[in-house]
């Protein structure tokens, strides 16, 4: 069962509809005690870093989440700000992140972006494989995914970078560390590519 975490941030509805149509068992989770029921978790996220972290703390889910992801190694997929909060900190805010992945969140350097409107990076962009992973099986890299963000994740360790994309230079568009995954783009808003990614995530066999 895929647990879609609803802590007030992100398009939970869209993710739920996708799993419903795929006939994959899912549950929208709002309470900490329901987190344990999930085999895999999805952490959506939209908006500002601090606001999102605060929502996560206020929801009462943060501690249980830490326990399950770091302790029990429950696979998790973070989306957009849901990925960003997995780092140590963000240039955008003051609160510390979850610290699941070694890295921090930085703002795009506007000087490196050629055309107006420089930020946010909004629209469809391609992805480039840095590593091959089943998460991206069957996905059209050229068609890409939908992005909308002004900050991006900087991995400390290169082996955590799964894909990059180009916006004023290469930046990390998805990461992974064993059972922890994150995408800067929105698979729930990326047509067939997104549906495939969600399907792949559900079918990943991780021990």
């Amino acid at each position, binding site marked *: 069962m895929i647990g879609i975490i609803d802590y007030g941030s992100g398009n939970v*509805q*869209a993710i739920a509809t*996708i799993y419903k149509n795929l006939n994959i068992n899912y549950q929208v989770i709002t309470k900490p005690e329901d987190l344990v029921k999930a085999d895999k978790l999805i952490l959506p996220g939209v908006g*500002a870093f601090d606001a999102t972290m605060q929502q996560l703390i206020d929801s009462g889910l943060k501690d249980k989440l830490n326990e399950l992801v770091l302790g029990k190694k429950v696979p998790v997929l973070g989306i957009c700000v849901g990925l960003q909060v997995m780092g140590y900190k963000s240039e955008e805010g003051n609160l510390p992140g979850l610290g699941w992945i070694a890295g921090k969140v930085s703002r795009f350097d506007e000087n490196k972006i050629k*055309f*107006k409107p420089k930020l*946010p990076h909004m*629209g469809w*962009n391609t992805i480039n494989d840095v590593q091959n992973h089943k998460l991206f099986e069957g996905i059209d890299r050229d068609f890409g995914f939908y992005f909308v963000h002004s900050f991006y994740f900087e991995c400390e360790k290169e082996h955590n970078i799964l894909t990059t994309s180009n916006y004023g230079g290469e930046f990390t568009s998805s990461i992974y560390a064993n059972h922890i995954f994150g995408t800067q783009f929105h698979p729930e808003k990326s047509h067939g590519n997104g549906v495939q990614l969600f399907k792949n995530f559900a079918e990943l066999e991780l021990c």
Partner: protein
Amino acid sequence: MLRSRIIPCLLVHNKGLVKTVKFKEPKYVGDPINAVKIFNEKEVDELIVLDIDATRENRGPNLEMIKNLADECRMPFCYGGGITTVEQARKIINLGAEKVALSYSALNNINLCQEIGAIIGNQSVVVVLDVKKKKLFGGYDIYTHNGTKKSKWKPDDLVAKLEEIGIGEIVINSIDNDGTMQGYDTALVENIRKNCSMPITVLGGAGTLDDIKNLISKFKIIGAAAGSLFVFKGKYRAVLINYPNRQERKPLY
């Protein structure tokens, strides 16, 4: 590389989809749900749906319709029409929309943009400017209530204010070019773009894919929205939903 967004824009009137010409003579186009489903299957970049009666009828958004439409969208979905409170905006986002579009309610109370942005995130707040050329001396006026009431806001002032507040996107909708399929008003866009660093989407006048290509070529990164182009076909303006497929989009960027 980031691609400019090509966005179908649908108008809802009396529960059905319509297309107008210069905001008048609504022609019935059909059921919104099936149209959105087809656009989704055609993998459109984004979709805008505007309820053109809500403000004039002084009523709020039809949440049931919004939910049904959002359910069909595997791409970003922007809804506008009759949103006057933060609570409505929040509900609409929870139903699965990505963005909410404001027109009259923002012009009437500019702080609403900030209030809504604080709850759903600034990136999700879109302001639509319906503009018409002034009769004399050049320049443009902003209109609300489906093109029937002139706003006191001047386009430049409004854009500056929105830039100061920080919202997700502005949609420049040309009333003069609406439904004419004779091309976008690029002079208008240039004018606004000069002093604006926010994302801009242009609506009104697209008649061929070349219009979109030319818009993107001129402005590099921009939202190219269209109604008639993606809903009509041929000289009889036969209703037939269309949108370039993945291959056909490539030459447009």
